[in-house]
């Protein structure tokens, strides 16, 4: 059964698609260094950094923007 007109009535359902598998490098945060500036949260293209600044590895594609933009170098990219 398909939906008429390819209408999707389940908002946000791409969450079923775990893009974490795309990743080759993984951001690892040192919470002690974090100053809660929020830049990693704002800049994440995948919306996978929580307001407590935890990475959701189910979706993180490992782009590295968070690590690059962290003003206090609290995030390191490490090999999966």
């Amino acid at each position, binding site marked *: 059964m*398909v939906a*008429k*007109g390819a209408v999707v009535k389940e*908002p946000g359902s791409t969450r079923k698609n775990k893009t974490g598998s795309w990743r080759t490098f993984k951001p690892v945060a040192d919470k002690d260094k974090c100053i809660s500036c929020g830049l990693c949260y704002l800049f994440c293209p995948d919306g996978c950094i929580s307001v407590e600044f935890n990475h959701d590895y189910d979706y993180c594609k490992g782009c590295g923007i968070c690590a690059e933009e962290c003003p206090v170098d609290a995030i390191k990219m490490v090999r999966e």
Partner: protein
Amino acid sequence: MVKKVISSAEAVSEAVKRARPSVIPVYPITPQTKISEKLADYVADGDLDAHYIKVESEHSAMSAAIGASGAGVRVFTATSSQGLAYMHEPVFAAAGMRVPIVMANANRALSAPINIWNDQQDSISERDSGWIQLYAETGQEAFDTILQAYKISENQDILLPTMVCIDGFILTHTVDPVEVLSQEEVDSFLPKYTRGYSYLDPEDPMSLGTLADTESYLEIRHDMEIAMEHSLDVIEEVGKEFGDLFGRYYGLIEEYKSEDADIILIAMGSLCGTIKDVVDKERENGKKVGLVRIRSYRPFPKDALKVAVKDAKLAVIDKDISFGAGGAVYMDVKAALDNETYGFIIGLGGRDITPIDIEEIIEKTENPTKDIEWIGLRE
């Protein structure tokens, strides 16, 4: 109900007014313009409470129609010829997105050469779009069909847009008597719109117009085909319901003295009025000639035609041409039926079609020399 002498363009507008669409995005083009002007008048006078969007092109007219219908309201638009060709892309999208838009098309020839007069090349060229296409013979039928079109399109098992095709000038600019139903009468047949399958509401979000890849596109298009086939029944049911209420019955086809005919003409639109006069005359002369008028071109009424034409010889009259292949209706009839069938191309670009032309078609069907003939060509 009141009987008035009005043009078919006005008849369409009167019907639209009573269908009470909330949004009317429209762009002027001859010979459709009379419809959009009339609707603008109604809105200007407060007789129609609709949002009239003066879009900058037909492409945007159809696009805005999809947006508005998708957002959950009843929508009307109208176009013709180049305008329909220009909106080709969103015409396909409207059907694919299953939004129940109703559009009037004032049939007119396509460029080049540029020509503002009537034939049916424009809407015929959209036959594969997934729109239901109904062709009216008269202003009365144009009025009645607009109302039925909403009922057909908005049927939750159908949800395909409907194009009501009326011959440009020959109908749009000709006045004759039309029974105009009252708002109460129309309401008893077509109630006010309530949003159905899809809508854009922040309290109940959904995504319309998504990307379907190789995994699902085939099934989604097949689902459209099922709806289109089912619309054969719905068009008949709605036509009967309309007849029960107002005394004018409509179906997929109209049979005129075809019951015992040896030769049956098959045609669409206003030309069928002239054909009926010729059929009467031929009958007086003892010739068993009849007419089957196709009202629903899409869905194509294969089974109804089969029953109607029996073993008669067929003359299919097209006001369109698929170059290198023949008339579109001719090809459809040939594909659907096994009868001895001849095709005639006529009236392109508004060339007047007289009884003499119809008599020639009958004569050429009696004594055929080739499968497809152009009628009325000058040296």
